[in-house]
């Protein structure tokens, strides 16, 4: 396998901008350390994030961008379902309603972040938007993941306004999760307590889906290793 830099693999920065920011280094610094063989990408995504947990504005921006990258992923997923004609019945109702919510979450986070917002990635949902069964399974995974991811970040947010906003999105993601779980024949509330998930672990799950396109850019990469 030829050596690729992470910039080439993730040229829109959907995953790495938030990751680099969470690691407390600039994107350029992070990427310059990150030239590696393609097979090592997942390992890089799972690399330990130093625990510099002290809330700060800089960290808030990283957290909101991390949330935005998850919302882009969900928005793109549900919007693709709609573009392909949607599903009939309650499942179609769920997909339409949730698509509108995830789009609203993207708009809200981009508004707050302004020029600091990361760009939307490119996705290939590998058939998950095409059949009812694959859609249900993927939507359950996305929604439970989003709940756990917001929960992992909320206590790390410094700005009270951002925290209030994040909490308002967190419980709506939980409503989505319960809704799709019921439609998938799963119990909507499996446990009395929902576990948080760290950013590192969340990004690892996202990477493992292979939904985020990591094709070599035709353009020259913005940063090279």
């Amino acid at each position, binding site marked *: 396998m030829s050596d690729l830099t992470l910039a080439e693999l993730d040229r829109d920065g959907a995953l790495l901008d938030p990751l680099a920011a969470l690691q407390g280094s600039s994107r350029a610094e992070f990427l310059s350390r990150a030239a590696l063989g393609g097979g090592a990408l997942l390992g890089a995504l799972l690399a330990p994030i130093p625990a510099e947990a002290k*809330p700060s504005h800089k960290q808030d921006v990283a957290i909101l961008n991390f949330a935005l990258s998850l919302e882009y992923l969900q928005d793109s997923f549900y919007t693709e379902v709609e573009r392909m004609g949607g599903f009939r019945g309650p499942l179609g109702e769920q997909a339409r*309603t*949730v698509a*509108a*919510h995830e789009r*609203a*979450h993207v708009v*809200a986070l981009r508004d707050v972040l302004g020029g600091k917002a990361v760009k939307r990635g490119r996705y290939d949902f590998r058939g998950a938007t095409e059949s009812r069964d694959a859609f249900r399974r993927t939507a359950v995974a996305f929604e439970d993941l989003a*709940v756990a991811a917001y*929960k992992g970040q*909320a*206590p*790390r947010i410094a700005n*009270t306004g951002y*925290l*209030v*906003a994040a*909490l*308002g*999105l*967190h*419980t*709506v*993601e*939980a*409503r*989505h*999760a*319960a*809704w799709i779980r*019921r439609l998938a024949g799963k*119990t*909507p*509330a499996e*446990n*009395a*307590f*929902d*576990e*948080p998930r760290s950013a590192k672990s969340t990004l690892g799950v996202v990477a493992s889906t292979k939904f985020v396109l990591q094709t070599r850019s035709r353009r020259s990469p913005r940063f090279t290793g």
Partner: protein
Amino acid sequence: MPDLSRKDVLRAGLLAGGGAAAGAALLAGLPQGAASKPSKKQDAEILNAVLVLEALQAAFYADALGRASLTGELREFAEEVGGQEREHEELVRQALGSAARDPPEFDFGDATASAKAFRQAAIELEDLVVQAYNAQAPNLTKGALAAAATIVSVEARHAAWIRDLAGKNPAPFASEPQKSAKAINQALNDTGFIK
């Protein structure tokens, strides 16, 4: 890192707020809005209000299971969710320790007397509890916030579940509506459930 079970971690987070508790009634004495500076003392006040909400819900589901002739998925919902509310109540009580105040008496009247009334009351209660947690979460210290966050999303799941069962939109808004502590307290009083 010490090998703590999930519940121990939760308890540690909530316990950070388990210090002194002054005697304020229900939610009325709580900070209005999100401007108050978090403190362990304030955590204890908020957690005592949370304890009332969790005890209220646990009692509500137990009462409905005894009186409302629930069948099918509605019964399954009440059993499952009632058990989870008891777990929440137990955790919050343990976290508060000696600072825990005894919850008031409850009377659910007609709300637990029929399946239809139960369903409507459950929707109102679950939505209200989600909004109550969200209103107070920013006033908690970070450790207590992390613990409360593991509960509030489960309350939101309950709300979505019962709404879907009742043929209502489980997620009727893109962002959870923000209510003041005062508005939540008023809505809670309006139920007439707390004696």
